[in-house]
């Protein structure tokens, strides 16, 4: 490691690390020699990338397929209003290069998939998982276990955060527990809403992403006691923190006593997410926002029902009848069966779920889902409406 050299500029830049006795230039050399892949350039990725860059991790890979959206700016502090519409990885790379010119960045403007994950992750020593959905969580986990990489994990929902260090390499060569030891299978789709549906306090990913960066640095340098075999929980609303133990599960299909998973699988299928145009939605009739506009302009007598939550209705609404998804079955009297009923939500998913229930349990035959929800209306029909 002594072959890693620093310029005068770098030594000055990292001086506050170098004077920590247990960190010193040895720790800084390990950082410079390290390659870290950050998956997801969002709420968690923003602090992660900024701190890892500032701290001097030598090579940083950045994976994200998305572009910056107005609704990201509440928490994704790497981006500015000027960046809206631009690819996240490109903007991130440009910003971070200004923060620390001594770092090598590699931007992957792609979604991580079962096809590319091994090739991308193979190039790195440590992975930091800041993704936002279950299929990618399991994909990152499995790829890290198969390749023997440590996976520094954090996840957030509303006011609540989780963090852990998975598949940590102990000095004796054994590996710490991984994500599948903690959660052998994902929740069924719909039970745990995404941040898009459920919301998240903007500062929370800042807190958890910073903790993640701290763990990445500890894993690389060997300083301190990493969060391996433990799950950190933080409730920002009550300021309660807990640390729970995570034990290896002998039945873990990828790292247990009798592993059956030796390659990556179809993670959408594993998480129960039907393929596009799958049969689950085929029996639901849908109309697009232009058809809704025609019907409303013609006052055709159809009824519009909004199954979002009241606080969403306050942000923006189409004057539909508000019956939140969870209370639909208690308000069947407000859902006519003799005229066309158009059901909408934010993006079209919850309304489809509601229609499924109403059709299968209560025999409704007059329901139409609004494709793309109120977001599509705001995008294509009335651009003066805010999106969220």
């Amino acid at each position, binding site marked *: 490691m002594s072959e890693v050299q620093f310029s005068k500029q770098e030594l000055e830049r990292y001086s506050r690390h170098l004077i920590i006795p247990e960190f010193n230039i040895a720790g800084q050399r390990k950082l410079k020699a390290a390659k870290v892949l950050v998956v*997801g*350039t*969002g*709420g*968690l*990725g923003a602090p992660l990338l900024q701190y890892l860059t500032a701290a001097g991790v030598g090579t940083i890979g950045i994976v*994200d397929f*998305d572009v910056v*959206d107005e*609704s*990201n700016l509440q928490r994704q502090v790497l981006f500015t209003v000027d960046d809206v519409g631009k690819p996240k990885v490109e903007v991130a790379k440009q910003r971070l290069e200004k923060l620390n010119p001594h770092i090598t960045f590699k931007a992957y403007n792609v979604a991580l998939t079962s096809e590319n994950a091994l090739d991308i992750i193979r190039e790195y020593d440590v992975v930091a*998982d*800041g*993704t*936002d*959905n*279950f299929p990618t*969580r399991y994909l990152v986990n499995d790829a890290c276990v198969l390749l023997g990489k440590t996976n520094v994990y*954090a*996840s*957030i*929902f*509303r*006011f*609540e955060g*989780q963090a852990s260090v998975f598949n940590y390499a102990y000095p004796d060569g054994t590996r710490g527990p991984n994500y599948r030891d*903690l*959660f*052998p*299978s*994902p*929740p*069924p789709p719909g*039970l*745990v*809403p*995404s*941040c*898009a549906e*459920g919301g*998240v306090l903007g500062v929370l*990913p800042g807190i958890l992403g910073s903790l993640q960066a701290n763990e990445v640095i500890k894993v690389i340098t060997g300083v301190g006691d990493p969060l391996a075999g433990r*799950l950190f*929980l933080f*409730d920002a*609303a*009550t300021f309660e923190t*807990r*640390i*729970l*133990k*995570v*034990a290896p*599960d002998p039945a873990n299909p990828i790292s247990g006593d009798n592993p059956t998973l030796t390659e990556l699988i179809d993670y959408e299928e594993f998480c129960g997410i039907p393929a596009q145009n799958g049969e689950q939605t085929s029996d639901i009739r849908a109309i697009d926002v232009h058809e809704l506009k025609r019907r409303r302009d013609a006052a055709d007598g159809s009824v519009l029902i909004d199954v979002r939550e009241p606080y969403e209705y306050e942000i923006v609404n189409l004057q539909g009848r508000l019956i939140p998804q*969870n209370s639909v079955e208690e308000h069947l009297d407000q859902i006519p069966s003799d005229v066309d009923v158009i059901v909408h939500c934010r993006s079209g998913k919850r309304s489809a779920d509601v229609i499924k229930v109403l059709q299968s349990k209560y025999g409704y035959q007059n329901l139409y889902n609004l494709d793309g929800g109120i977001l599509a209306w705001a995008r294509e029909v009335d651009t003066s409406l805010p999106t969220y």
Partner: protein
Amino acid sequence: MITIHIPTPLRKFTHNAAKVTVDADSVSGAIGALIGQYPELGKHLLDTDQQIRRFVRIYVGEEDINQLSGASTQLKPGDAVSIIPAIAGGSKG
């Protein structure tokens, strides 16, 4: 009394209560009492065989009940039971 910590995604079924106290001397008793108070939680915590679902972990203190005696793990007054669900949020949204 046993305190049960309710995670955010399940609070919609507990009228937003973050903690629920029950009288119970085992984990299964505590979960049963919790579901008694909030019946809608039942289908999210237990499968059709009344087993705890695989995407939630139950802890007593800092120990996973799978490392103790599972659902029959004994509880003593003052114990804290945590329900830990998988959450995925992070990047975009």
